[in-house]
Structure formats: structure tokens, C-alpha cells
């Protein structure tokens, strides 16, 4: 058997609907026989009548509705058609869901699924990675699964968590990643994973950038370098301890993320390592992000805009020389 990242997301939702009557799925085109723009909910409306609900093109109201339902004890899963459109729902996510527990002592257990990141030809408005924006605001947990197994267990975990979870699922990984089977249980939420061990340099990454980082590590292995690759899994909370422990082994740090370069997850990792582990560093830490422009449409431009195995490897080589 072989199961894709996308199928894992569908399976997780099927299991959640099966096991927990508080769960329902809400979003554009998720219901009926259609099953979502990416088919992440295919067949679920039929299997779970009345619990996979189509919504109008109203991102603000979709999330607002999920928040209201959560107040009444439900566990809504919202599917944004594309992460990019969650900008319309930003207010409900940040100001309503993110503040509610702090203000009123009542947590809001919603899960917002964001089909994230670039794929060829998708252009400026169907390619964004928004984890850094959501991580910036208080009151939210931001998950960025990089493997099929994590896509499955982390989504189940997201719904179990009483607080709002932004679940960034990467569209490039939907079909590119496969696993033999789905695990019962994953690492605890908030724990990073050492995806590959090494002692010369640490690459910290998450989501689809893990693929590029691992490929870069393999290329460098051919030149005799042992690269450690850390998968953050959740960018918030950020597992600083695991990162620091890795940097303690390697002395060198490169962070790779797909969101825009000003601030964000990679900057946060570097800020923490420099302030808490300055003495561990043998060279100035580096990072790679997407370019500071809107995301281009053309494949040639797109593949240059985001970090890729080639420029991750080049950056790593540079850092290894220092």
C-alpha cells in the first residue's frame, strides 16, 4: 500500500469524523460529490451526511462561524481553498480566535487547514506560505507537517487541541510524498524531529522546504559533509531546545523557509540560537527564504523564487567554508 500526503489528510479527517461527533468540516466546495479543490475531503460528505458543509465564498464568515460553533462545544475543521485566501479571514483568526481564551478564559478549538506554498504555475495568489504571519500573533498554534506521517497524526492532534490550530499543508507535497502506512501516533506537538543526523552543519526547516534541505544534504554528503536536518514540525511553538542541541553538535546553522524573507520563522530560529546559544556557533548563522517579491507564475521564475536544493546546498557550502 502507498498513501500520499493528501490522502493522509483525507484519512485523518475521516477518522476524526468517525471518532468524534463534535467534528465537522466547513469550507468552499468541500461537500457534495466534489470533495474540495484538492480532493482532501473526497467522499466524506457522503460518508458523514450533514457534517461536511459547503460554504459560500466568505472566508471571514466561514472562520467566524467555526469560532461560534467551537464556543458551543464543536470541533470544526475549516478548509481554506488556498492559504492565500485566509488573508480575508485574518481578522477572525487573529482577533477573534487568537484572543478569545486570553480574554474570556474560553478556548476556541478550531483547526484551519491552509493549502499552502508554491506549485508551478500557481502565481502570486495561489502559492503563499503564511505560517510566519500566523506565528507572529498570540493564541495560535501553527503546524507545518513535512511528511505523510506527520500530515496524518498532526491533523488528528490539531483537532484534539483545545486552542486554535493553523495547519499549513503543503500543496507541493500533496502528491509528491508517499508513505507505506499511517502511524498510530506521532511525536508530541511542539517537538521537532531530527530528520537526518550529521555533525558538520545544521539545517533547520519545515514543510516542503524539508525536501529541498534533505536533497541538499544528500548532495553535500557526496562531498563528504555530514549535514544534520531538523524538521520543526510546528513553527509555533518552536522547539528551540532541539535546535540548540543540534547546533551544539554542529556549530553551524542554516534555516530554510518558504515564506517571505522579512522576519518570520527562519529569522526567529536564528534570533533564538544567537541569543541563547551564541557560544555554540562557529560561524554566523544563515537563512534562506523566498524572495521579497510576489510569487511568480512562470515555472522558471517560480523555481528561482523559492529556496531549492541547489541554492540550499550552495549556501551550506559557503557556510561550511567559514
Amino acid at each position: 500500500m502507498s498513501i500520499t500526503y493528501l490522502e493522509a489528510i483525507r484519512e485523518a479527517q475521516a477518522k476524526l469524523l468517525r471518532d468524534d461527533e463534535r467534528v465537522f468540516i466547513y469550507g468552499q466546495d468541500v461537500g457534495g460529490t466534489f470533495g474540495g479543490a484538492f480532493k482532501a475531503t473526497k467522499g466524506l460528505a457522503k460518508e458523514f451526511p450533514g457534517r461536511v458543509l459547503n460554504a459560500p465564498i466568505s472566508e471571514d464568515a466561514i472562520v467566524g462561524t467555526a469560532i461560534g460553533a467551537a464556543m458551543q462545544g464543536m470541533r470544526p475543521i475549516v478548509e481554506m481553498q488556498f492559504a492565500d485566501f485566509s488573508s480575508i479571514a485574518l481578522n477572525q483568526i487573529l482577533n477573534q480566535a487568537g484572543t478569545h481564551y486570553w480574554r474570556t478564559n474560553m478556548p476556541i478549538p478550531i483547526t484551519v487547514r491552509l493549502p499552502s506554498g508554491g506549485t508551478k504555475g500557481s502565481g502570486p495568489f495561489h502559492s503563499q506560505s503564511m505560517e510566519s504571519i500566523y506565528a507572529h500573533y498570540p493564541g495560535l498554534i501553527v503546524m507545518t507537517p513535512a511528511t505523510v506521517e506527520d500530515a496524518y497524526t498532526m491533523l488528528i492532534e490539531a483537532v484534539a487541541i483545545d486552542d486554535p490550530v493553523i495547519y499549513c499543508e503543503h500543496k507541493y507535497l500533496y502528491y509528491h510524498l508517499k508513505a507505506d502506512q499511517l502511524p498510530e501516533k506521532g511525536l508530541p506537538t511542539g517537538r521537532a524531529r531530527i530528520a537526518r543526523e550529521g555533525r558538520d552543519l545544521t539545517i533547520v526547516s519545515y514543510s516542503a522546504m524539508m525536501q529541498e534541505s534533505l536533497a541538499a544534504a544528500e548532495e553535500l554528503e557526496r562531498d563528504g559533509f555530514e549535514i544534520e536536518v531538523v524538521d520543526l514540525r510546528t513553527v509555533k511553538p518552536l522547539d528551540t531546545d532541539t535546535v540548540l542541541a543540534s547546533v551544539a553538535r554542529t556549530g553551524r546553522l542554516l534555516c530554510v523557509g518558504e515564506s517571505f524573507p522579512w522576519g518570520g520563522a527562519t529569522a526567529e530560529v536564528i534570533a533564538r540560537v544567537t541569543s541563547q546559544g551564541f557560544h555554540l556557533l562557529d560561524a554566523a548563522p544563515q537563512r534562506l527564504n523566498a524572495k521579497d517579491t510576489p510569487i511568480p507564475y512562470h515555472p522558471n521564475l517560480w523555481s528561482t523564487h523559492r529556496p531549492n536544493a541547489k541554492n540550499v546546498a550552495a549556501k551550506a557550502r559557503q557556510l561550511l567554508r567559514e
Partner: protein
Amino acid sequence: MLQTAQRTAKSKTKKAASAPSHKTGADKAAPPHDRFLEAFRWMLLTRTLEEKLVSLYRGGLITGGVYIGKGQEAVSVACGLFLQKGDIFAPLIRDQAGRSAFGEPLLDVTRTYLGSRLGPMRGRDGNIHRGHPRNNELAMVSHLGAMISVTVGTLMAKRLKGDKNFVGLACIGEGGMQTGSFHEGMNLAAVEQVPLVVVATNNHYAYSTPNDREFACRDLVDRAIGYGFEGYSLDGTDLGACLDVIGSAVKRVRAGRPPQLVVASVLRLSGHGEHDDASYVPEEVKRQPFARDCLKVAEQTIVDLNLVDAETLGKWRKDAIAQVEEAIAAAQQEPAPEGDKEDWCALSNRGLADQPESPE
């Protein structure tokens, strides 16, 4: 209009601020006018409370803004009065009367305004940004329009859970009606056919902006058709009309009719907040019929129809003052929150809180 008070919606059993009792001198009028008099007493309590809050603010005893509902008490009280246990109420900034009638204790108000650690918001949020979501009084965020869809969501959840006989009522100003969020929420409410009443109070200003810079349609109530709501206009200065129109709207959604939009017309008889002298409101506007003070109009009705005698009215007034004084005195003695003792964690799941700094 007063005959509308004859409607016999079930009276709420539990009132947090002490509920008006109707042992009045006006025996002949007592049963039919019960609702009117009960509403009047909530309005009186609200006016008394808010006047007191204003004077505390002027005396520098309240940090942050004070926002009152002067001139809107009749509309607001009707919003709270017809809701029963299990119903959802989403009040906004001028809904003290509705909040009280819905069951919000006065102490919630004074604790929040005065920054008591023991209040529902514990100093983390202030003034009208308060609520008790566990008691179905939603805690508004500032962003206008955003509470409509949240209310829709509570109602959808109740339906999914199989609850019966519930309704939701959300308040909005004519300014907030112009947001995209409001529009999305209204449309969704109709698509889902949830039992929602939206009461829009056109007080003719959004902060300093008059109606003609806010919208260009003939009448806001016409929008009901576009949304798939049933729409009703209301003279918000007339308590009897408020009870009638809003009470009927609540009844209709409870009976399974489509969502209801009530658009009430009043004038905001205060600044936007107490920091604002509202000098931009022309004298001519203040002479319009919608500029009448609903509390005075209601009191005049009581006097004209001799519903209760002057002595009783005086007693009610005194009682309102006593309740307000008590709630303020209590909150004033309570501890304030302290920064170095605060629990700086925005997640209920403490184990998942991010640690940006090392523990040392």
C-alpha cells in the same frame, strides 16, 4: 403601541442584576403592561449606571474609553428581554440595557470598567469588550461586523447538536453594517437559515460620520430582501414599538421563519465615547423625531396611562441608584491585576506555549 406589551413571552427566571418586580400601584394595568414596565426599569437602571460611569470617567477613575447607549436603551432592552435560557446574545457597544435584561450582572460592568482582577475580563480587556461566552453572552471584539458570523456559528452548532427552540440575536450599528464581514455573516445566516435576529440601530452616526457618507441606499431595511432576511423598520424611541417589533422578530425565528433584520432609527444622545463632544451633530438633527429620548418617552407613557404612580417611579429610581452604587463600591475595593503576577499565556494548553526566551 403599548398594547404590544401584552405579548406573553416567557419571563426569564434568573436575573443577575435585581430584576424589576411589578408590584406597582397600577393594578388595572399590571398584567398587560408588565413587559413594558420591566423594560422601563432595565432602561432606567442602564441610564443610571451609564451616567455614573461617565462621572467616574470625568473624575479620572476609569482608564480607557466609556461608551454609552444613551437614546438607544429602548431598542437594546428589547434585544435582551425576549431571549431565554439557551439563546445566544451578541451585544455591541451601546447595549447595556440588553445585556442587563439578558442577565449580565452589574458587577461585570463595574469590574470591567474599573479594572478589577475579579471581573470576567480580569483587566485583560476593558469597558464594553466583555462577555460571558459560557452563558451565551458573546464577548464582542472591536472589529465591527465580526460578531455576526460567530453568532451564526453558535446557532449552526446548536442545530448540529440537536438542540431545540433556540434563537440568536446580534446587534449592529448602521456603521458596522457597511463592513464586508457583516455582509458575509448576513448572507451565511440566510444560506444556513439559522434562527437569527439582527437588530441594526441606525443612530445616524458612525463616530463623526453621518448617514450620507455611510451608505447611499434608500433605506437600510431594503437590504433584508437582498440577504434573504425578513426586514422591519422601527422607531427606536418608542419602547412599545421596540418590544413589539423585536419581540415579534424573535418569535418568528423561534417559529422557524427566515432570519430577521430589524432596523431601528434613533439618535445617539452622547458622543461616540465620552472623550467625544459630538460637536459635529447639527442642532437641526437634534430636533428630528428620531432624536427623542426613549427613556423620557417611555416615562411619559407610564405617567399618561397612569401605569404606576409617581411614588413608585421614585422608588424605582432610588433602587437603580442603590444597585449602581453598590456595584461600583464593590468593584472599587477589589484588587487590580498585576503585571508581574499575570499569567502571560494565551493558550489554554500551557504545554504548547511558545518560549521565545530561555527560562533563566
